C-alpha cells in the first residue's frame, strides 16, 4: 500500500475529485482528515463505510474556506489533538464561467476567496507543522483552465492560474525542509461541477466526440495521480504542474 501509516488532510473531500481522492487514499492505507464545508449525513455514512472497508481512521473536519477564524479554529483543534499531517491535498473549489465583461467583480472575489485565499490559509498553517517534521507532500488541484485560459476564465481560470504560481513559489521555499509541492491540472472531470451550466459547452463537445481520449476525465484517474504524488514513489518529483487531460486542448 502506497500510503500506509500516513495521514492526509484533504479539503473538499465530500464530493467530486476530493471524494475520489479520499477513497483512493483509504485504499492505499492512509488515515484521513476529511474536510467539508458543513456536516452532511450522507458523507458521514460514506466515510464510516470506507473507514471500515479499508481499516483506516477517517476524522471529519468542518470549516468554510471563506471564514478565516473557522479555518484557524479547525486547524488548532487538529494540532491540539496531535493529529499528524503528512500529506495535504487542496481539492476544495468552486466553479465559475462567463466572459469578463459579464462577470461581477464580487463573483471573481468569491471564487478567489474559496479557490485561492482559503487554500492559502490552510496551507500556511499546515506548512508550519510540516516544517517541524521536515517532511511532507502538498498537492494542489488546479485545472487546465488555469493554464489555457480560454474565454470565460477571468474567475475560475484566474484562481487556478494563481494556484499554479503559488505552488511553484511554495515548492521553492519548502524544498529546504524536505517538503514537496506539486500541482495536478485536470481537464473537465465527470463530477457535479461538470454538470453545471458553466461547463455545458465543453461537456457537450466531449460527450459527442468519438476519439478514445476526447472525453471527460474520470475522478478516479485524477485521484490515482494525486495518490502517486502523495507517495514516496514520487520522492524526486517536486515543483511540477501535471496536466491530466487525455492530450486534449480546447
Amino acid at each position, binding site marked *: 500500500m502506497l500510503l500506509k501509516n500516513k495521514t492526509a488532510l484533504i479539503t473538499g473531500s465530500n464530493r467530486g475529485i476530493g471524494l475520489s481522492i479520499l477513497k483512493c487514499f483509504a485504499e492505499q492505507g492512509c488515515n484521513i482528515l476529511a474536510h467539508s464545508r458543513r456536516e452532511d449525513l450522507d458523507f458521514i455514512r460514506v466515510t464510516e463505510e470506507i473507514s471500515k472497508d479499508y481499516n483506516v481512521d477517517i476524522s471529519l473536519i468542518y470549516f468554510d474556506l471563506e471564514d478565516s477564524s473557522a479555518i484557524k479554529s479547525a486547524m*488548532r483543534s487538529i494540532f*491540539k489533538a496531535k493529529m499528524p499531517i503528512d500529506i495535504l491535498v487542496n481539492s476544495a473549489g468552486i466553479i465559475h464561467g462567463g466572459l469578463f465583461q459579464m462577470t461581477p467583480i464580487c463573483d471573481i472575489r468569491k471564487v478567489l476567496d474559496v479557490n485561492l485565499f482559503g487554500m492559502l490559509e490552510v496551507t500556511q*498553517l499546515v506548512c*508550519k507543522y510540516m516544517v*517541524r517534521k521536515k517532511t511532507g507532500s502538498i498537492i494542489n488541484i488546479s485545472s487546465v483552465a488555469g493554464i489555457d485560459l480560454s474565454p470565460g476564465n477571468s474567475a475560475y481560470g484566474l484562481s487556478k492560474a494563481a494556484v499554479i504560481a503559488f505552488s511553484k513559489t511554495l515548492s521553492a521555499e519548502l524544498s*529546504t*525542509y524536505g517538503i514537496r509541492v506539486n500541482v495536478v491540472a485536470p481537464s473537465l472531470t465527470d463530477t457535479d461541477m461538470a454538470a453545471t451550466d458553466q461547463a455545458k459547452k465543453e461537456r457537450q463537445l466531449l460527450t459527442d466526440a468519438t476519439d478514445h481520449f476526447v472525453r471527460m476525465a474520470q475522478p478516479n484517474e485524477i485521484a490515482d495521480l494525486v495518490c502517486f504524488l502523495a507517495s514516496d514513489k514520487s520522492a524526486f518529483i517536486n515543483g511540477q504542474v501535471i496536466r491530466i487531460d487525455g492530450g486534449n486542448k480546447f
Partner: protein
Amino acid sequence: MNNEKLYIQAFVDAFEIDESEVSDLEYESIQNWDSVGHMMLMAGLEEAFDIMLEMEDIIDFSGFSRGKELLAKYDILV
C-alpha cells in the same frame, strides 16, 4: 522542563547552537537565523508551548528578548 528551559531549547534546536549563545540573539545576527531558521524556531516554539502564533507575531519576533514579550500574549511567561 520550565518555560525558560523550553524557550532556550527551541533556539538551540532551531539554530543548532549552544545554550550559552542564545540570550542576546537577534534575527539574522547569526547565519542560521535566516528566514528558514526563523520558521524552524517558530515551529519549535509552537510545539513546545502548544500554541499557534499569529502571523503578525511571527513577523515581529525579532530576537530572544522580544520573543519573550510576544509569548506573554499567549499567556506563556518566560
